[in-house]
Structures are given as structure tokens and as C-alpha cells.
């Protein structure tokens, strides 16, 4: 008999998720499934505003012992902090035509995968009292939801994303310029896209965001067929986003194609690395917990970074 943890984790598999049509339910499943595999609650976060002291018990982190109070009372007390919204998240989801691609090997289209990731992250983020906003884009930002940490905000985000893929092309440079204008405060931007645009334009756009002191994480989505190119026999490839047609024998192009994909990913990884931007590639056939892990890892590193700064101020 399967235990509850195993039962939930199976919903991280895109094949299983594809059977769940409702995006809200899908997002909840992802988050529950993700955390059912961990041993601590997501609701116990760390904040930086002091709330109260409690007695030290065995197993508490020594870093949180209030040493000043120990000097006064000769007893160990642990500082407890009040939870508060400390991150602004902006989920930037690509809704261009290319995101609608779905091969027979994949259970979800890239867009479905992208909004599943976005919904799950936003759900988790709101649980952590982070502010979450949304931007859907193709050639430009088509839908924009300002970040908020209100619990009901999640439904608005989910409704905004559901089924919004369109026929337009991707234009990343213009998107980043528009984002840079709209986001006036420091925001953690999750860009979820197949990035089918000129790599130099993309990197230029990311550089602009970086210049505006915005932090970014790039989730590059790929359909499994785009990564393996498994086709045989004469095939006419009809390009989405008005990129033209090509009649060819795919087997003869496979090696070169994969080289091109690898070259692009390498260029993106290198370019993002130089800008201190996380670049993560996703295969739409792989489980979605990777995305949530990436979010939490980024969040932790950011909070730890701030915490260490606060602590250093207190010490001073």
C-alpha cells in the first residue's frame, strides 16, 4: 500500500498532471506532492523582524540563541521572529505560439508546463507571504498582474494564465525593456519561456533588467522532441511563429540540429552566468518539483543573504 507521501509525489509527473484539467488543483497537487517528500513544514519560515523569546530546547539552531540575553540571565533563549512578506516575485510566462507546441512524447505542451510551474510557485510563494505578480507575454506583455501577498491573489493569477497561448511571435528584448519600466522596486523575476528568440536579444534584455537591479531566474522550457529530435522519414516541418517550412530527411539533420540546440543552451548558460542569473533548462517530460526546488533554493539564498546583512548590522 502506498503511503500518503508517495501518493502525492506521483502528481509531480507531467503525465499524471495532464489528466488534471483545473490549473488550481494542479498547482496544489504539485506543491503538496513536492512537500510530502520533505520532512518539514513549508509554513514555518524564517523572518527578520524579532517577535519573542522562548527557552532553548535541545535541537534548536545555535545561531538563533540570544547571546546578549544569555549574558544578562545566564540562560539560553531563542529569538523568534515575526513572519512578514520579504520577497516580490514576478512570474513572467511566455504565451507565444511556439509555447503551444506539444510532441506526441509529451503529456503537456510547453505553455501548460509553464503555467503549471507558475501556478505552483505562486501558490507556494503566497503560502510564504511573498508577493507574487504575473506577466504573460509574446511580442509584448499581454497580461500584467501586479505583485500582491493577499491570499486571494493566487486565484487571480491562475485565472489570468489559464489558456492564454496566442499566435504571436516571441520578442524578448522588447519584453525586458517593458518589464524594466514597469517594475520600479526590487523584484525576483522568474522568466518561464522556450526562449525561441535571438540569444543576443535575450541576453541584452536580461542585462537591462540586471542593470535596473532586478534579480532574474530563467526557466528555459523544452519539449522532449526538441531535445532529442527523434523523427525518421521525409518530414515537412511547418515552423510556428512564421518561421517558414522545411521538407527534409530528419535523420540526416539530427546531429547538426542537436549541436545547434546545445550551442544555444551553452550560450545562454554562459551569458546568464556572467550576469549572475540562474539559467535552468526544463524538459516538459520531467517532474515539476525541480522548478519548485529552484524557487525555494533561490528564495533561501536571497533571505539568507538579507539575514546575514541584518545580523551583521545588529552585531555592529
Amino acid at each position, binding site marked *: 500500500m502506498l503511503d500518503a507521501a508517495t501518493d502525492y509525489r506521483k502528481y509531480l509527473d507531467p503525465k499524471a498532471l495532464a489528466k488534471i484539467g483545473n490549473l488550481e488543483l494542479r498547482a496544489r497537487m504539485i506543491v503538496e506532492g513536492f512537500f510530502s517528500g520533505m520532512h518539514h513544514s513549508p509554513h514555518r519560515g524564517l523572518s527578520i523582524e524579532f517577535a519573542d523569546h522562548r527557552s532553548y530546547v535541545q535541537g534548536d539552531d545555535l545561531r538563533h540563541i540570544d547571546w546578549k540575553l544569555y549574558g544578562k540571565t545566564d540562560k539560553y533563549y531563542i529569538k523568534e521572529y515575526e513572519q512578514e512578506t520579504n520577497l516580490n516575485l514576478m512570474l513572467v510566462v511566455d504565451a507565444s*505560439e*511556439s*509555447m*503551444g*507546441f506539444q510532441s506526441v512524447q509529451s503529456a503537456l505542451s*510547453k505553455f501548460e508546463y509553464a503555467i503549471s510551474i507558475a501556478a505552483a510557485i505562486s501558490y507556494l510563494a503566497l503560502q510564504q507571504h511573498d508577493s507574487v505578480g504575473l506577466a504573460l507575454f509574446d511580442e509584448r506583455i499581454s497580461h500584467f498582474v501586479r505583485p500582491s501577498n493577499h491570499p486571494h491573489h493566487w486565484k487571480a493569477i491562475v485565472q489570468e494564465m489559464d489558456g492564454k497561448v496566442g499566435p504571436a511571435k516571441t520578442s524578448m528584448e522588447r519584453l525586458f525593456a517593458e518589464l524594466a519600466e514597469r517594475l520600479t522596486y526590487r523584484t525576483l523575476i522568474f522568466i518561464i519561456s*522556450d526562449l*525561441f528568440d535571438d540569444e543576443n536579444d535575450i541576453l541584452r534584455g536580461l542585462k537591462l533588467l540586471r542593470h535596473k537591479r532586478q534579480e532574474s531566474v530563467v526557466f528555459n522550457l523544452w*519539449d522532449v522532441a*526538441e531535445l532529442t529530435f527523434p*523523427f525518421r*522519414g*521525409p*518530414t*515537412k*516541418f*511547418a*515552423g*510556428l*511563429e512564421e*518561421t*517558414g517550412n*522545411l*521538407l*527534409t*530527411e530528419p*535523420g*540526416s*539533420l*539530427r*546531429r*547538426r*540540429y542537436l*549541436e*545547434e*540546440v546545445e550551442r*544555444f543552451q551553452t550560450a545562454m548558460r554562459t551569458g546568464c552566468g556572467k550576469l549572475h542569473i540562474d539559467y535552468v533548462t526544463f524538459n516538459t517530460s520531467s517532474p515539476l518539483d525541480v522548478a519548485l526546488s529552484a524557487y525555494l533554493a533561490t528564495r533561501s539564498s536571497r533571505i539568507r543573504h538579507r539575514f546575514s546583512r541584518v545580523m551583521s548590522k545588529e552585531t555592529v
Partner: protein
Amino acid sequence: MVTGTLAALLEFIHPHLAIGALAAGLIPVIIHLINRRRYRRMPWAAMSFLLAASRRSIRRMRMEQWWLLLIRVAAIILFCAAVARPYMAASSLPFLGTVRSHHAILLDNSRSMNAVNTEGVSRFERARKAAEMLIASFPETDAISLITLAHPAEAVIEYGSYDRRFVRERLASVRPTQRITDTAGALTEARRILKDSDVAEGNRAVYLVSDLPSREWGTGSEAAASATIRAGRQLTGEADFTVLRIGDEEGGLALTSLMCESSLIGVNAPVRVLVETTNLSKTRARECELRLQKEGQILRAAKLPPIAPGESVLTSLPATFASPGTYTLTARLLPRVADALEDDNERYLSVEVRDTAPVLLVDGRPGSVPLDGQAGYLSTALAPRVNPTDNTLIEPKLITELELESEALTDYDAVVLCNVQRLSPEQWRHLQSFVFAGGGVILFMGDLVNVDNYNRLGYAEGAGLLPGQLGERRGGSEGEPFTTFKNDELRHPVVSEFADLPDSGLFLARVNNYLSINADPRRAEVVLRYANNDPAIVVSDMGLGRVAVVTTTANTDWTNLPAKGDYVSLMRKLEAYVCPPYGERRNVLVGEAAVEPLSPAQASLSLRVTTADGRIADGKLVPQGESLAMRYGPIEQAGALTFAIGSDLVRFAANVDPIESELTPAAESAVRAALGEGVRFLTEESDLTAPTTTGKSSEWATTMLYMVLCLLLYESLTAMRFSAER
């Protein structure tokens, strides 16, 4: 340049397949084009990467595709070309091709090949030994066909055989026969076989091993010679031709004819038997005795004088027969003549002795006295009686048109229709069956004859009884209201006796009226014509019987011929021709079949045949028109045969054809004149070997198939290498 030279030298055994090979070379191209049209459609997002990959690979891919296409096209063209069996001169690139030949051996096993030399060895045995040596000299890769020359020429091994044991067995199974030579047929058969052969055209050879009868090579019968020469010339252009002439023995005395003077023989009526003896040697024959036997009993004997070379002597021997029936007469030269060919020193004759010959005369307008109607005149001519009680062999019976229905035709030897107006379809059919079964029918015209009925049912567009289509009634011209019979071209036996009698009553007779007839050239023969060249008497063979049409009347209504003395002679000749004594067709040649019509009652009796060599065999029941007949044959040995139909005995005589007794061979010059100087003419058996391979063609099919295999292997490896590089 090398390729061009090669192509110019290369020829094909099946050139149409070579054209197909070129067309087949388009198959990979067509498949490629079809595949370009048959593709699946795939929406694709990562198009920029694909286009970039395509831009980088397009040149190399095209080169690879063209190269693979070229290999495939070459492989298919080579394969189809190999099937078309290419060949070229054996001297060109000899190490790559294979020289393979097809030999057709034409072995003469006709009667003349039974002639023996002074050592007692027959021509046939020498010919067979030469053929055995020839076969032994052929390479194992060569195909051999074997054709015998005895008429009709027969392919003993039709398709070239590579199995030497089989060839030797078939050669050993060939027996000498008493049939005539069919050189033209054998050459035609050889041509057909070699034409279908699967070896290169230059590698076909014919070996004619024969005694080369002179009559077939321009010095005898024109028809036989022209047929042989025509067939031989066609073959010399298509194959190496070698002729081995076997035997130079002379012929000797031969019985070349045995017949009765009269075709209708009555009981106790004296008949003369005519025997022709010919000296076919080049020296004067010595005296000998000619003996005539009946069923083994000596009837007569006569001394033959010495006969000069090439001369014939006709001996007439009287004979009488005491009872009706069929008899076999044997003429024999004694003492036993020791010449090269012995089977022509005997000859056989089957005769039928009748006590009566009934003839049915049907008159469309019988008179009150016999000479009023046409049948009356005929009856008087065929059976003249001084006294009413006189016996005559021919027994005419006069009836009217209405009485014909109730008569059984099989009771008569012949039926004569005189001025009969019309017959029902059933009556026409019965008459036709009667003729098929061996009866004779003569039709005389008259003013009552309904031309439409005769043409529609009697001629029936060539399928009926009449040998021609009747036309309008004609007579003399305006200045001369009558015509006469033409005194010319009187070669037919019915009228041949009048050829030397220009003052005969036949040519003095006037014909006022006659019906024109358009004789069917496929089966009719015009016996006698009018002065204006219109046919007067037309005859035709049909089954075992004959039919004749006389286009005028049998009495004096339309012609005064019946008033002439020659009328009787002409009518009796015509009657005898149309209803020949059964004995005449019971004399057959070796190679023909003996056929005896049977009545329905006889068909259920036991049918046995005693052959010339004493064997007893079952007779075969075959359809003959609407009735049945007993058949045995073709007969392979000369002599007397007896058909036992129940308790009745019917005797047949089978004779050899006398033309085979002429042993003079054709001269080398005659053969060369007939076949051209390119022919290899040999007279010694030991010289008969296969020609050298010089000038022969070598076949490339095997080499090409190896090349195809190599190409396919190379194509697979190349395709794999290209795939691996991708």
C-alpha cells in the same frame, strides 16, 4: 571513352529487356520523387535551430543523396542489363565474360538412313556415332538440342540441355524409321529453338548429320528443295552451320508402284495388277523374278528383264477374286536382292472386292420413261444392261426427291442428286455426314434447282457440303447461244484420258445452260471448265469421302453431252472418283494412319489391329464427321495390317515412300549453293567437332551480377557511414 567503346560492343540476348533496364534505372529516381511527395507534416517550434542545421548540412546532404541515388540507379541498371543477358566479342576483355554456346544437332533417321555399307553398318548408326563424338567435344557449359529429320521433324530435346547423360540417353532412344526426310521441317524447328535460346547470338550452332537426299537440295522436287533451301538460308544467317554428309552407297532395284488397273473390282471379274520396278543404281540390274502373292499364296510370277540404270519396268499381272472382301496383295523381288536398302524390294496393296456397288439416284423431275429424267440417263450410263437380267457391278436405284427422306444413305456407295429443287437442313446434314464417313455425292444442276437453298444450306459459307457457291444461270453468248467444254488443263484423273483426244465427243458437246459456281479455293478443285473458263465440274475431299458438282444437267435439257459416246466414260470416271473403292484409301504410306469408318453397330464390337510385324494392338475409336471410325497410327513399318472389327477383317497396306529409295546424295556444291559459302561441309565423321570459340561472344551476365552485389554492399556501407556521420 572506354565506356563508350564498351557500350558499342555490348549486345543483348533479350534486347527488349535491355531497354527495360534503362527504364528500370528510373525506378530509384521515381521512388525519390514519390517520397518527396509522400511526407508527413509536423508543426515545429524550434525552427530556427532546424534551419540553421539545414543551412550547415544542405550541401553535404545533397552530395550524399546524389551519390546514393547514383549507386542505386547503377545497381538496378546493371541488374536488369544482366537479366537481358549482355554479350560481346569473346576477344574483348576475355577474362571477364563467359563463352557459352547452344548446339542443335539435326540427326537424320529417315528411311534412306537404313542403307548399309559394304561392312553392314547403316548410315544411321554412323550418324549416331558421329553425334555422340560431337556431344563429347562440347564444353560442359554448352546447351544441346536434338532434332530428328524423319517426317514430321521432331525436337527430341527442345530446350537446350546441359545434362550430358540425358542427352546421350535421348540420342540412344532415337530409332531409324521408314519415313521420308523432312529437312525443311527440322531446319525450321532448329531455327525456332535457337531463336528462343538464351545464349548470345554468335554462339549458336547447327549440325546437320544426314545423307542429304539430292531431291531436297535443288536436284529433285522443286517444292522440297525450295523449302529446305529457304529454311537453311534463314538459319545460316543466325548460327554456325555444319553439314556432315553420311554415306555414298548407291540405290538398287526398288518396287516403286503397285496398283490395280481398275479401281472397282468385282467378284470373279479379271483385274490386272500393275507393278513398277525401278533401277535406282548406276549399273544395269540383273534379271530377277517378280512374284505376286495374296495373303501369302503365290498368285502370279514374272521374269523381269535386266533394267538399265534409272529405268523403270511396268509389269501387268492378272488376278481374280472368288469372293467379296478385302485382300492384301504383296509384290516381291526374288531372289533376295542384296542392295543397300532392302525394304523397297517388297510392296503391298489392299484391294476390296465387291459383289455390288449400290448407287442412289435422286431425280427432281423423273420422267415417265427412264430417259425422260436426268437419273435415267445416268443409270443407263453407269449400269448399261443389254438385257434386264444382266448383272452389273454398279447397282443404281432411282428415287424421287420425296422418297429421299426414307432412304438409309449408308446402304449406298454414292448418292447422286439430279435437278433436285431443295433439301431440308436435316437432309443437307445427313448428306454431309455420309460424305465424311467415306461416301460420295454428285450434284447435277437443272431448272428446278433453288440456288438460294443450295447456297444457304448446302454451301453454308464454306462449312457445308457444296465445294462452292452457286451463281446465276448462264449460257452461250449472243452470237453463239451455247458454250463448250474447254480442251485444256485436263490433268485431273476424271478427265485426263481426254487430254490426248481433241476430237472427243466431250469437246464437241454443246452446253446451252449451266449454273455458274464460285469454287471455294480452300478445298475445291476444278476438274473441267467451259470454254469461257467457268467451272463445269468441281470436286472436293471431305472427311473420308468426296463430293462433286456438275454445273449442267445429266440429261439433254441443258447440254447434248449425254448424246455423245464419251458421256458414259466421263460419268463412270466421275462416279469411280467420287466414291472410290474402300481399298484405295486402305493403302497408306508409312507415317500415315489407317482409318476405317464404322457403323453404329460396329462401334460396340471389339476392335483389334494386327500390325505388319505381327503385334496385336487395340484400335482407337475416333469421331468421323457425325459417325465413328477405327484408327491406328501413325504406322511405323511397311506391311499388311489387319483390322478385326468383331468377326469382320479389314486389310490395310502400308508402303514406304519410293522417293526415299533414291540414295544419291546432294553434291557439296549444291549444298554450298543452297546455304552459302559460310557453311562447314564435312564428309568424314571424325571431322565433326565443335567450332572454335574464335569469333564467338562472351556473356557478361554473371560478371554483372557480381558487380550488382558489390554495388549493393557498397551502397549499404556508404549509407551506414553517412548515417553515422549525421
